[in-house]
């Protein structure tokens, strides 16, 4: 019997091998190579040096862009949360068929390339776009509103791409709430509003936290949307890293920027997790 168990374990290990090779080949190795490029001269082959990192921390320009990247990601998280929560609530209490339909609807934009979706936004949000034309023809505004090529445009674009993660994460945790809890709360005297704040919201925290972490990390590393919707004036770290490598051909600085982005994302997510996972939270939600 123990022999059988060991051979089962062996089979499981063997089944993991192809996946591990792919992760190693396309993810881990390039990362190590990038780290070398950022830490050594001559495309990762020369002498060890911290000159690229020193550059990043000495020039406030880079830190300002880091701050902007973080700020826009936070805005996106907040907007996704505020817009996504009601959708998630609706989904969680809808009949299975309806839930399937909504899932499809919020996923369907992702069937289209993000580049094309962003051009769609340009048509809607531009100076001569749908929104400005409508508002101007109604006489509500005299000149076009600036909805694009600024921070607002980036947040709109990022929300469009990322809200689906927030909605799915929250609806999953809402769906897991036993509906008899609402009956119990109601009979004890809680109005709908009180039920929301004392039952729904606290019990959906795992979904909110998962959605927040996902949306934040993905917003931090977004490249296409900030590039297309923010234009040249709203630069973020991923765009900057791309420019350093492709335009300035400073691969070492570009790689250092990439690691600055990675490091700050990990740091912020870790701090966030530490803050929200209080003793009580762990006791209630850990299985």
């Amino acid at each position, binding site marked *: 019997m123990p022999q059988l168990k060991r051979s089962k374990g062996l089979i499981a290990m063997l089944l993991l091998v192809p996946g591990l090779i792919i992760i190693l080949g396309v993810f881990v190795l390039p990362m190590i190579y990038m780290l070398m490029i950022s830490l050594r001269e001559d495309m990762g082959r020369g002498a060890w040096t911290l000159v690229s990192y020193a550059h990043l921390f000495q020039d406030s320009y880079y830190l300002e862009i880091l701050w902007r990247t973080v700020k826009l990601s936070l805005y996106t998280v907040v907007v996704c949360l505020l817009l996504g929560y009601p959708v998630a609530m609706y989904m969680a209490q809808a009949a299975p068929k309806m839930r399937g339909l909504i899932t499809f609807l919020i996923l369907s934009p992702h069937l289209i390339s993000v580049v094309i979706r962003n051009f769609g936004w340009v048509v809607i949000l531009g100076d001569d776009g749908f929104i400005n034309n409508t508002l101007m023809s109604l006489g509500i505004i005299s000149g076009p509103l600036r909805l694009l090529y600024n921070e607002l445009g980036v947040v709109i674009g990022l929300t469009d791409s990322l809200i689906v993660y927030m909605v799915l994460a929250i609806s999953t945790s809402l769906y897991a709430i*036993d509906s*008899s*809890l609402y*009956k*119990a*709360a*109601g*009979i*004890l*005297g*809680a*109005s709908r509003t*009180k039920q929301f704040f*004392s*039952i729904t919201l*606290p*019990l959906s925290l795992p979904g909110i936290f998962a959605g927040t972490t996902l949306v934040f990390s993905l917003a931090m590393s977004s490249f296409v949307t900030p590039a297309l919707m923010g234009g040249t004036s709203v630069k973020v770290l991923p765009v900057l890293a791309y420019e350093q490598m492709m335009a300035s051909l400073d691969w070492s600085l570009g790689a250092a920027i990439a690691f600055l982005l990675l490091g700050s994302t990990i740091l912020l997510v870790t701090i966030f997790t530490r803050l929200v996972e209080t003793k009580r939270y762990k*006791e*209630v939600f850990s299985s």
Partner: protein
Amino acid sequence: MTKSYDVELHQIRKRFGSTTVVDNFNLQVERGECVTFLGPSGCGKTTTLNMLAGFLEPDEGTLIIKGKPMNGVPANKRDLGMVFQTYSLFPHMTVAENVAYGLKLRKVSKSEIETRVRKVLDVVKLPHLTDRYPKQLSGGQRQRIAIARALVTEPSLLLLDEPLSNLDAKLREELREEIKRLQQEIGVTTIFVTHDQEEAMYMSDRIVVLDHGKVEQIGTPEDIYQQPATAFVHEFVGKSNGFQAVITGGDEHHWRLKTTEGMTFSAKRNDRLYNSGDEVSVYVRPEYISLEKVGSMQETAEEAGVNSISGTVKLLSFLGSFIEVIVEAGSHIITVRTNYSPIISFAEGEPVKLSWNAYQANIFPRKEA
């Protein structure tokens, strides 16, 4: 003086789509009474309870609690206590917070909340669990906490929807005893829902037997058992031997009838009148049938008002305080329950004589197929 009732249901009706789930439900519950809704799964017990609680609105009829009409009043304004089959404790709150929930909503002062929570946890005998979370408790403990949470607000009416159905047999008996004791001590008017007839008998002052959304009978446990109003009640509550028969005649005390298998019986006369040729169902409880060995000394002579038939023992089951004997008599299979006695023992295959008094046979019009 007219009696005042804590709960009054007048011609309550509820439909889901085209199916009527609760039909013409009438009931009055006195202060301090414990009334059970008993019936098979799907008969409308929970639906009725949900209308009392305010989770559902009746389509027709009036619902009065403590003299106040409740139609249209939402659950949170009804001041009731409720216990659910699945406990329904708030998983993110400690035991103390769960129990305090209703008091906080009523803006009771902090110090009073503390006193009342401690007191009610003493009452359910779990004073030491205040800081635990529900998932750290056993099923029995959870249900006790749920009961404490329902009682702490001193509700005008306590509703329990199959509160014991998720517990194992031993715990179920323990907890039902405790609920009964609490109910009597506190004197809270209680409506208890169950599909378990023994539980219903044990708990209630009165039982409402339901089938397909219709009230079949309302009565004390004894009434329900001894004087079932309908064939359904006779079959659902307790064990019964049922026979299909035709009326052949009768006198002022008895009906004479003949089973479809050709045996003749007599059954006691009740209010209902029958004509010769009417198709009826006759029921006899297993414990009212006496069992004798054929040719034994005690064999009783035929007498008026006693039905007797002979048969063969098919199966014997020892069930502790009694034995259950399955007897084949002609084409009837009859279940008999008799006190266990080490002196008179029966063997499978043995010929026996069964007899029962005519007044212990209940007769009902044949159910529509």
